[in-house]
């Protein structure tokens, strides 16, 4: 379970300090698929990055189960992110010159997983996401929907507790969007927490719950 208590985030530059999150409180249970909605600049991505351990909250507390993430040092938080969080981003963040297989294998490589085991895990996840036939292809030759599935496979290969997706269907056509959403619905059944940041009502309607954020404040839950 994710628990956010009065989370604030301020970006400070030399001249100005910009308060992006102003005391966000919420709880997300395991097995829930939750959408965070809001205008551009409302603080969706920042909240997602804080949950993902990429950013540190300026104040407040963030618990994942009984782990106080806000109390972690940077190194511990990095390890926490590596072990517990799967990230899917709007531009997929894949390395175009590598094959789909190599991209999916990256998190396993960073964990020094033996090659044979990695191969088995990748094959399983590829079958589940229907991308087995794409594994040997270079990512730059894949379509947007295929790239997104590769990105999801990469996020899932390390079996994270929390799957975070920033605009996961933003660049996809309706049909592909539907497929991805169905996939996410299936994935939450493994007792995972899935959080999406989206502008799309259609995407939000497919989720169990919608958190609306406006000017750094959670306005509806």
């Amino acid at each position, binding site marked *: 379970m994710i628990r956010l208590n009065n989370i604030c985030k301020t970006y400070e530059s030399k001249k100005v300090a910009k308060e992006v999150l102003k005391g966000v409180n919420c709880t997300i249970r395991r097995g829930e698929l939750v959408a965070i909605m809001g205008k551009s600049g409302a603080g969706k991505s920042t909240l997602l990055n804080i949950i993902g351990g990429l950013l540190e909250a300026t104040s407040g507390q963030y618990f994942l189960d009984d782990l106080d993430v806000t109390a972690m040092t940077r*190194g511990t938080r*990095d390890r926490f992110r590596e072990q517990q969080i799967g*990230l899917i981003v709007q531009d997929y963040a*894949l390395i175009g010159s590598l094959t789909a297989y190599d991209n999916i294998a990256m998190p396993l490589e960073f*964990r020094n997983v033996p090659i044979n085991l990695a191969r088995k895990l990748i094959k399983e996840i590829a079958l589940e996401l229907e991308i087995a036939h794409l594994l040997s292809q270079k990512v730059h030759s894949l379509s947007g929907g295929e790239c997104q599935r590769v990105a999801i496979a990469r*996020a899932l290969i390390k079996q994270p507790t929390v799957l975070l997706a920033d605009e996961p269907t933003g660049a996809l056509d309706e049909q592909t969007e539907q497929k991805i959403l169905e996939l996410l619905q299936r994935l939450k059944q493994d007792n995972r927490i899935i959080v999406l940041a989206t502008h799309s009502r259609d995407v939000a309607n497919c989720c169990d719950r919608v958190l609306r954020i406006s000017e750094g404040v959670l306005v509806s839950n």
Partner: protein
Amino acid sequence: MIYDQARRWIFRHKLISLSTVVYIATSLFCMHILFGNVMSIKTRTDEVFSASAGEELYLYDNVEPLGPVIRNPEQVQAVKRYYADLATDDRFKFYERIGQPISVGGFKGTDIFCYGYEHGGAVNIYEMHNMQQYTTVKQLALNFVAYQDFLANQVADAIGFTEEDFYLDESYILPVLLGAEYEGVYEVGDVIDCLYYGITTKYKVRGFLRQGACIPRKGQMVYLDRYMVTVSPTVTLEPQSEDEAYWQGALYFHKLNGSVLLQDLTLPGFINVLEAYRLKHGMFELHIMTYPETAITSLRLLTYASTDILVLLAVLLFVFVALVLVLGTILNLSQDRKNMRAMLVSGLTTNDLRKIKIAEFKLLYSGGVILAAIAIFFLALPATPSLALVLAMTLLTPYMVTVIPINIHATRFINNRVLR
């Protein structure tokens, strides 16, 4: 894992990596040439000019005719005592740089070593003695003080002269150092027959001088590449024949025509000392002459100016190389943002990313260093006594100077552009 990822990045970007390695290697090679030459010139300049900083007073006898004097044993003994007083007075330095040529029996070299060769052809360079042909070659004989002050640091790969070498013993064998162009003509240990004022002596080759070795003499630089440099010996042996007495007389007249560098005396003070010694030994007068040091001064100024220009060039090249390396790496970071983001999303930490980028730079730099070191070894190993220092300066300093800004920029870039 860090170096594995860095290595993969390099293999994925073969063209950029290869260009970077070639750039680093070329830059380091050029810097090495430049720094090596600067160091070498500075060292040589200091070696050559360090002892020629003061104005020397050259002494001349005005004895005419000389023959009867040097055939007179009593006169010769008086000259030896007169000389001994001058040479051992510690209020001034007494230098002997005798340029008298020497006749060598069975000479193995070519005409370039002969006396007068550089002045439009050697004349009267052959003479017969005991049915053997002797060739007259260029020679310089030094006393110990002159050797120490002017030449000791220009001897290559050999033991130079020791103080004991400057005393003649019954063997009549003197050590000789040969100019660089004698290499291949004679070997270390060879014994050369010589004829000097009718007496046969032997020179034993002690070693060779460094190429370009030179010595200031009478306001000029004498370049010794084609010279035999021997000791101007002190002779305590009693002459056993008329020929030996004549030889000792000739030798000591040459020795007396040395030069003086004043230390604790003014010129009038020195003239008084000289006069006192003359009266003490009932000797002839010695004249004092100076030579304008214009040639040497000009040479010195020119060399120092050239060194300064080279230093400036070396520093500019160094700054340019470091700047291009830093800017190139920064540009490369910007272009690699997407890949870095992919790695971050895949689970790498920001610290890992920074380490990978530094590791890439280290690997590329090492490649450049290896290439440059090979090129330096085969093409341009400089003849500098501080090779290790030059190598360290040119190969490692650019790394140390550039890795710090690269590290700082990589950290900022990852936090501000990749993480957000």
